[in-house]
C-alpha cells in the first residue's frame, strides 16, 4: 500500500466527483448520484511500480465510459485530482473503452480509506500510481500536464508491460 501523505477522511455526505472540461464546463456527482449510476464489477490484475502485482482483484464501481457519456470535449488528456492534493495525468482515451472506473468497493467490502476510499480511480492497465486514491475529479486538458509523481520524474504514461517507470523509459 503506497501513499504520498496522510490519509484524508472524506465524509460521504460532502463527497463529490467533478469532471471539468477544457472549456470550464463542470459535471458533478454526489455520492448518492454515483451509486445510482450503472455499477460494474471488474476483476482485474493490478501492477505497482515498486514491482508487485496482484492478480484477480475484484472491484465495484462506475465505468468512466458512463461518467464521460454525453460530455462534449475535444480534450486528449486528463489530470486526475484527489482529496489530499494528489494529482496524476493520463490520456483521455485510456479512461474509455471499459478500461477505467471510479471504484468504491474492493473484494466485496467498502474501499478502506487507506486504500483510497471512499472512491479511487481504477485504471488497471497502467501502473497503479495512475489509479488515484481518494479521487475527487478529472480535469480534461488539451495538452498533457504532469501530475504529482510525473513532475518528480515518473513516466507520463506508465505502461507496466513496457516497464515505463521513469521519464525516458
Amino acid at each position, binding site marked *: 500500500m503506497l*501513499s*504520498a*501523505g*496522510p*490519509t484524508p477522511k472524506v465524509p460521504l455526505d460532502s463527497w463529490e466527483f467533478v469532471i471539468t472540461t477544457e472549456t470550464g464546463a463542470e459535471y458533478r456527482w454526489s455520492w448518492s448520484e454515483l451509486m445510482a449510476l450503472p455499477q460494474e464489477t471488474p476483476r482485474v490484475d493490478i501492477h505497482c511500480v515498486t514491482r508487485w502485482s496482484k492478480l484477480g482483484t475484484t472491484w465495484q464501481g462506475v465505468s468512466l465510459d458512463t461518467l464521460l457519456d454525453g460530455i462534449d470535449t475535444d480534450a486528449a488528456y486528463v489530470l486526475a485530482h484527489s482529496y489530499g492534493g494528489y494529482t496524476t495525468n493520463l490520456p483521455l482515451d485510456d479512461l474509455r473503452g471499459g478500461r477505467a472506473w471510479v471504484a468504491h468497493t474492493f473484494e466485496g467490502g467498502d474501499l478502506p480509506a487507506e486504500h483510497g476510499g471512499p472512491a479511487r480511480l481504477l485504471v488497471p492497465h497502467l501502473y497503479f500510481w495512475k489509479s488515484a486514491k481518494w479521487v475527487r475529479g478529472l480535469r480534461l486538458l488539451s495538452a498533457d500536464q504532469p501530475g504529482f*509523481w510525473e513532475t*518528480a520524474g515518473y513516466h507520463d504514461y506508465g505502461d507496466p508491460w513496457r516497464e515505463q517507470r521513469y521519464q525516458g523509459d
Partner: protein
Amino acid sequence: MTDMSYLDGNMLDAPLRELFAVDLSGAVGRCENCGAVGPMGTLRVYSHAPGLIGRCPSCAQVMLRFVRSPNWARLDLRGTTFLQVPMPLDQPHPGPI
C-alpha cells in the same frame, strides 16, 4: 488526516548525501505554504511511495520530493522557500564578504 505512517526527516540524510557535497543533516528549511522554519530533520517523510515525500510538520504540505531511478536522482523542492546549511568559514572575517 489521521495516519502516522511517516518517518522523521532525519532519514533523508543518507539519500540526499548522494546528491549534495554538504551535510544536510543540520539544514534548516522554510515551508513555502505556511512559512514555518525548522530543521529538515523534522519533516514527515512518507517512504511507502514511489519516491520520498517530505511534508511540513506544521501544515503537512509537500516541501520535498526525491526520486531515485537507476540512472538519475531528482530533487523537487518547490514547496521549500530556502534551505540553510551550516557552513562556517574556515577563517574568521570582520565584515560582509
